[in-house]
């Protein structure tokens, strides 16, 4: 494993593939950050990525205060969910959520009282615990419970991901502009938690004066071991594997984690969330979210409570509903189109895009793959997207797995360039989910086989014993003495068994 000292942040590497995209970020940045008002209703989804569903610990009719825990995870992989404002729980039920395909999940609906009354937040002792109680999950999009990343040791480098690479999204840049101090605090806390020797703060080179601003703060506060580095603007430089490659020249092993290299990657938002909790005692209740797109009159960044309905934010940004063809949570490359705007945003929602018909329209219809290889050229994971597509189309999922399907980061670059306009990423999502399902069934059937064989073995043994016994009986019948003895023995055994049974368990 590489040591921290061997990483020279000044020297950049590059990753294969990737795209140069128009970034469209200035519009929303120019209008600055606004505080969103408190909506009438909050929709808090209990499913935070990877299917970790938290269980509600409040009931319909309960009054809740801001910052109060309303759902607890049932496994270690989950995270806490807090009420993001005070009010009354008016429903707990299945609704669409701001997740892939607007999946249905349990959602707690809070009707706010607009008083925004805080509850008291208990103090925590270690930073890792703080991360957990603050309900912090990765805010870079994946929503991975952050405290899990700090369970490993041997971590030498913390990479702070400010390379917001998708077009339109500017929430991270806004955050860096407006809260540089909290950010630096968060980073130092994280370094402490991970016992890391250094932190590399990566920015895309298209951002303006942020680097000098942060450098200044670092210098002023005399903080060592934090370096700010600008990386080239190539989509998806913000993907953690690509970012690590660019900064260190190392590749996260296929199927592995950054942890395997002794690295943790963390979004800037995540860092700030930690600072918020440790410095101000505020759990993760609020995030910065970009509202943009050509159907938005006044694109801007909002600081919004989690659970705020999309419609509430859109209203504040002069939204033109008739013009809108698609409403996307996330960026144009990886985001998910929402069927309607009554869905609450969650901790990972970084952008709302309202796009008009002209902007979303394909220039041709979807045709079969012509194997043109464009997708191969742009794939940052160095896969053969067209082969994957071909195998998945033909239901040959094992072959897709052999072609490293699971190394696909679903960045959508391949689908973007495809002249046949194939929804490639959909195929990969389908295949991944189906393979997971089949694997699950396989383990289940293997277990069943073992259980069955054990049972067969047991039955066989019983049968053999019975046969043996019968033989013995036959044998014994010639020997009356022995017969009597055996009879007695059997009776004894039965009696003993009865006694045992009557005993309480």
């Amino acid at each position: 494993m590489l040591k921290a000292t061997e990483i020279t942040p000044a020297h950049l590497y590059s990753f294969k593939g990737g795209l140069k995209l128009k970034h469209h970020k200035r519009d929303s940045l120019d209008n600055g950050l606004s505080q969103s008002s408190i909506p009438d209703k909050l929709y808090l989804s209990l499913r935070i990525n990877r299917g970790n569903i938290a269980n509600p610990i409040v009931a319909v009719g309960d009054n809740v205060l801001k910052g109060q825990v309303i759902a607890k995870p049932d496994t270690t992989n989950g995270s806490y969910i807090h009420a993001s404002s005070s009010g009354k729980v008016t429903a707990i039920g299945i609704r669409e959520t701001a997740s892939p395909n607007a999946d249905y999940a349990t959602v707690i609906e809070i009707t706010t009282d607009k008083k925004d009354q805080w509850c008291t937040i208990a103090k925590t002792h270690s930073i890792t615990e703080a991360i957990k109680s603050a309900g912090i999950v990765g805010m870079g999009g994946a929503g991975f419970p952050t405290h899990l990343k700090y369970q490993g040791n041997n971590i030498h480098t913390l990479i702070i991901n400010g390379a917001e690479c998708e077009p339109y999204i500017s929430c991270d840049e806004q955050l860096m502009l407006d809260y540089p101090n909290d950010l630096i605090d968060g980073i130092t806390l994280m370094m402490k938690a991970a016992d890391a020797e250094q932190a590399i703060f990566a920015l895309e080179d298209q951002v303006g004066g942020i680097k000098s601003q942060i450098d200044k703060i670092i210098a002023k506060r005399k903080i060592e071991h934090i370096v700010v580095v600008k990386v080239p603007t190539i989509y998806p430089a913000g993907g953690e594997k690509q970012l690590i490659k660019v900064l260190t020249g190392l590749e996260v092993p296929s199927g592995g984690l950054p942890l395997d290299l002794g690295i943790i990657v963390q979004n800037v938002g995540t860092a700030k969330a930690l600072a918020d909790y440790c410095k101000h005692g505020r759990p993760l209740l609020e995030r910065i979210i970009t509202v943009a797109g050509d159907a938005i009159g006044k694109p801007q960044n909002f600081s919004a409570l989690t659970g705020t309905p999309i419609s509430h934010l859109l209203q504040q940004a002069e939204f033109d509903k008739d013009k809108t063809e698609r409403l996307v949570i996330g960026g144009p490359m990886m985001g998910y189109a929402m069927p309607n705007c009554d869905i609450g945003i969650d901790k990972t929602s970084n952008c709302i895009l309202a796009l008009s018909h002209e902007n979303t329209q394909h220039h041709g219809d979807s045709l079969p793959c012509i194997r043109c290889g464009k997708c191969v050229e742009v794939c940052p994971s160095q896969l053969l997207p067209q082969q994957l597509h071909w195998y998945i189309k033909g239901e040959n999922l094992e072959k897709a797995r052999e072609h490293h399907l699971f190394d696909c980061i679903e960045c959508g670059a391949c689908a973007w360039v495809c002249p046949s306009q194939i929804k490639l990423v959909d195929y990969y999502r389908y295949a991944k989910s189906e393979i997971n399902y089949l694997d699950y069934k396989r383990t289940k059937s293997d277990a069943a086989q073992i259980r069955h064989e054990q049972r067969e073995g047991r039955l066989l043994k019983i049968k053999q014993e019975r046969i043996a016994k019968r033989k013995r009986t036959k044998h014994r019948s010639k020997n009356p003495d022995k017969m009597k003895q055996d009879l007695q023995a059997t009776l004894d055994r039965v009696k003993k068994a009865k006694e045992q049974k009557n005993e309480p368990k």
Partner: protein
Amino acid sequence: MSELFFIFISAVFINNFVLVKFLGLCPLMGVSGKYESALGMGLATTFVLTLSSIISYFIHTYLLIPLELEYLKTLSFILVIAVTVQVTELILHKTSPLLYQVLGIFLPLITTNCAVLGVALLNIQQQNNLIESAVFGFAASVGFTLVLVLFSAIRERLEMADLPQSFKGTPIALITAGLMSIAFMGFGGMVR
């Protein structure tokens, strides 16, 4: 030496047994659904074919000719092949279960592969000596394996294409074989 080289090249490409001489087509159609089976069949055939062309050579030169029983050549060659196949199968089954697993189901099919008997007969017709017979047998089976393996990779890809219903399976395989044989016509005339 160069003579042997030409025998080899000629039997593999120019007079490819399967696509040019039309021998061994049944396994080509039957055992080419997937790459692994095709390779297995090819290897098994290579082994049996090389071995049986050597044995056939001995039988012919040291038994049939001295006894003036040349008209029994087909009979004796096919017997040799059947026995070779059988013995190979039995031995393999015991000594290398792993290899048997790979080749096992293909071995019995080799007896009825025209190419095997074809090689033995052509060896006589062309009056090849021992080394030439062995090389010819080996080369013929390499050519066979090559086509089989290429064909299987193509068929694996076709499996997933939207073929017209009535051409699925055998017909498209035959068309593919036809186009392959057109491609092989390019080798025509290279060794005179």
